[in-house]
């Protein structure tokens, strides 16, 4: 267990207890991720990779096992405490962008900072939008932006809180090939700047650009390089 590891997962389990049976979505995965890695999390439908992503993103708590993020054990935190961890440490990029339709690009990017009561939220948001090349689109509403531009806004939002990890769930899933390639380039550029990025995907092209691959199958890990 290295001291520069951002993520330490130890025997993570996520079980759902139904009256008739217990579903073992994740049945004991362990791994660590160092700072600056670009990791692909792959696996077929129902493999448990979404469940793993939810745990890594602190959207859910493990039934058993421990999850240490930046040296802090986040496995048993309350919902509100997890919200705070997400706000301070994690940036999400979703397949369907998940921008708020009534806010413009700048306001969308600014949102995490508002909930975290960060100072200078507007200027930080503007800086992030500039970083993804959308300085001329700040006052545009999401429905005035193309798919690629929307995903850029989402990435800017994911960066605005300077997160320890960027979690992207099928980031190119709703984009055409050309735009998808552009977004992947943006992510690899961010990686070369030192960002730790985890991409959940079932697209081989996407998995290929990553330096490491964690493969999930039936709730367990099969690691490949």
């Amino acid at each position: 267990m290295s001291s520069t590891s951002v993520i330490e997962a130890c025997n993570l389990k996520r079980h759902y207890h139904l009256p008739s049976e217990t579903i073992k979505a994740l049945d004991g995965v362990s791994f660590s991720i160092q700072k600056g890695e670009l990791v692909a999390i792959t696996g077929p439908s129902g493999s448990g990779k979404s469940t793993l992503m939810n745990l890594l993103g602190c959207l859910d708590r493990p039934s058993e096992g421990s999850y240490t993020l930046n040296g802090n054990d986040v496995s048993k935190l309350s919902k509100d405490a997890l919200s705070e961890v997400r706000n301070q440490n994690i940036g999400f990029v979703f397949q369907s962008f998940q921008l708020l339709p009534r806010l413009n690009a700048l306001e969308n990017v600014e949102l995490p900072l508002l909930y975290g009561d960060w100072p200078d939220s507007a200027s930080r948001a503007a800086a992030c939008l500039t970083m993804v090349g959308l300085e001329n689109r700040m006052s545009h509403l999401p429905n005035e932006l193309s798919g690629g531009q929307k995903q850029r806004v989402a990435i800017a939002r994911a960066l605005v809180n300077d997160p320890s990890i960027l979690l992207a769930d099928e980031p190119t899933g709703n984009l055409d090939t050309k735009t998808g390639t552009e977004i992947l380039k943006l992510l690899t550029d961010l990686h070369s700047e030192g960002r730790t990025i985890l991409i959940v995907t079932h697209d081989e092209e996407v998995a290929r650009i990553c330096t490491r691959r964690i493969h999930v199958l039936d709730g367990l890990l099969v690691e490949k390089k």
Partner: protein
Amino acid sequence: MKLFLLIVKMAFRSLFANRLRSFLAMLGIIIGVGSVIAIFNLGESLRQKTLSRIQTMGSNLLIITSSRKKFRGVRAASYQTLMPSDAYEILEHVKGIHLVSPVVSDGAQLKYFNSNSSASVYGAAADFFRIRGFEIEKGRRFSDLEVLQIANVAVIGSKTARELFKNESPIGKTIQVKSIRFRIIGLMKEEGSQGWSSPDQSLVIPYSTALKKLKGQGHINEIDVTTKEGFSPYDVEPKIRALLRRLHRLPPQKEDDFDIHNMQEVLNTVSSISLYFTIFLGGIAGISLLVGGIGIMNIMLVTVTERTREIGLRKAIGAKERHILLQFLIESLVLTSLGGMIGTSLGIALCHGVGHFADIEVVNPLSSIITALLFSIGVGVFFGFYPAWKAARLDPIEALRFE
């Protein structure tokens, strides 16, 4: 604090983005509050008007009337035992009496050449005008001497005068009441209201003349009594009762053959009856406010469902449960408060409109406005809480996946 203001701003933005829906949701509140305000304010205005009418006659007024005979438990014809002398005995022997007037009243047709007018004819003493608060506009009232002289003089009310004389002055003219001629010596000031206490449609003549020449009887209908300053009608009433029983030679076991109406009591009764009535009507209107609140809850539930993904996203990027709760609670509060303010304004406008037509002076008590606004806020919190709580409790993972 900054976050709180931001959340308020977010709430306004959301409401404004869906203007039509927000307005329709508010409509229930607007109608509810508007109708409650209109009813309360109108009711209160009517009550004030009635009370001030009674009060100009003086809350130190007592009215004694002959009671109806009880015949095996059923009330039949009135006793005829009330005499003018009774009134003056009261004046002389009961402590604290200021003015008295025997009164005999009847409806009659007044004739002047070809003009006719129906009026209430009061046969009364000279002090009657002071007791009832009837002011003289032209001419004069009759005197105690004229009462003694059984003079055929009369003081006429403004509406009746207009009907008989059009625009001419009634002073000095002679009219006929039941074929008896009366000379008009005074015109009373217009009061504007109707009914028992208004002089506008009446004719006042000496009671002696009324008894002897018009009615041919010795007994009177009523005695009006006012008390001196410092003497309450409640104190004086039992003394009057005792005196009258003695004068009418009533044995102890026999009932009174008269009724004493304490105007102070009438005032209190009218005041509370109209208040209860207003509250009752207002309560009914309040039901519409309740319905409005249910409408708000309905709309907010729809809104929460619609914005499930948005709520999921907000939570994912760091919103805590209380932030979500606050946002939706504020949206509901804004709807009801704004609706309450608009409803209050409309209610007051409606009130003024009706008051203008019905010739009532409208009051807008601050208490009703404040109550309405507080109620709006209460409705917003009460009916908005459940949807907001539902929103706050959403699981971010499920919410993000929601179609």
